């Protein structure tokens, strides 16, 4: 559990191919499957995200990608129990259940591979899957790169907690603490999909658990010159290029926690300055 501090690292856009000459190493599935022209941008998005089966089934298709918590996912990994197995000539289809839902996982059979070298997977066994979300006739399945049996059952707990931590990272932002010990987290976060303007906010003494939008609004109020009446929401929306619904939601979080307050009317907000 102590390793959870590691989640302040960048989960958003890991670039496996970008470290100098390392392009040939690691798992480069994205690169090898795409045309040379498209390969570059795809590669940069080649992330591996731990998820629950419910998240797979509820992922949103957008173009060639799927979105979970409003960010692109390419590879996913999850843990589940095999409910049924059907072996065809070209692929094996497993139906997996992790308690949150069920999904079909298809693994293509490599004809050159010796059958006996494949791990034996019995019904009701717990397995770990890595793969890509696919959609066919409005039904999602996962194209698996590998499926391996789980031997240490603690991996199930570990996976579910990791999936939760990553989900919270994408919906509420990185771990922050009140004393602002979050230098690395803020920096990594600014590379993420959720907006670049929020880096380094941890030092502002905001309570933990605020959404990215709430943090942006607070930052805007803090850094924009204003009268003691504060700023009108329309002004904030314009400065941040934020939808009014998102703005209202983020503002509500800040009002609820008492770090901002309304001044001349409900739509004009100012920071409640407790330190001075």
């Amino acid at each position, binding site marked *: 559990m102590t390793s959870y501090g590691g989640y302040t690292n960048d989960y958003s856009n890991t670039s496996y191919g970008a470290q100098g000459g390392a392009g040939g190493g690691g798992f480069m599935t994205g690169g090898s499957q795409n045309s040379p022209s498209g390969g570059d941008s795809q590669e940069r998005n080649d992330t591996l995200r731990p998820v629950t089966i*419910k998240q797979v*089934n509820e992922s949103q298709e957008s173009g060639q990608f799927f979105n979970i918590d409003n960010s692109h996912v390419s590879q996913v990994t999850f843990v589940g129990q095999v409910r049924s197995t059907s072996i065809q000539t070209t692929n094996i289809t497993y139906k997996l259940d992790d*308690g949150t*839902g069920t999904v079909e996982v298809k693994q293509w059979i490599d004809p050159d591979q010796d059958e006996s070298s494949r791990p034996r997977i019995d019904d009701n066994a*717990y397995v770990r899957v890595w793969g890509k979300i696919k959609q066919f006739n409005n039904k999602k399945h996962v194209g698996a790169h590998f499926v391996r049996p789980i031997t240490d*059952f*603690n991996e199930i*707990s570990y996976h*579910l*907690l990791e999936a939760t931590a990553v989900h919270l990272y994408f919906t509420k932002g990185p771990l922050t603490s009140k004393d602002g010990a979050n230098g690395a987290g803020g920096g990594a976060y600014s590379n993420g999909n959720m907006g670049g303007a929020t880096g380094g906010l941890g030092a502002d003494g905001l309570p933990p658990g605020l959404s990215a939008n709430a943090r942006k609004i607070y930052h805007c109020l803090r850094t924009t010159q204003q009268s003691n009446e504060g700023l009108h929401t329309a002004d904030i929306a314009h400065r941040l290029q934020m939808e009014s619904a998102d703005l209202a939601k983020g503002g509500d979080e800040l009002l609820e926690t008492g770090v901002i307050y309304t001044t001349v009317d409900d739509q004009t907000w100012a920071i409640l300055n407790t330190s001075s």
Partner: protein
Amino acid sequence: MSESTPRISSQYLENFQHQTVRVVGKITQLRGESATMDANGSITLQLNRDTHLQLNHACEVIGKVQGDLSIRVLTSTDFGTEFDLTAADAVVDATHRYKEIFYGDGH
């Protein structure tokens, strides 16, 4: 979704009567047709003929919570003796706190 089986421990039993759930705990007593499991408090399990439990092993059961808060076991998986029940408890807590990624809005 009807296919989900929420993870619970003993203190959640009342909220999940007549539902199919998952519980991980340590088997503390075996009495033929029933058994007792410790999952943050003790739970009575009603076994079926195919259930094979081992004393002092951690075990995951999928079963239906009865009106008397015992669980009628449908399937069980032996998790052995090296399983960290504290971590499993943290999972139960997380799944109820952040149910948006685990279970439908029905609960």
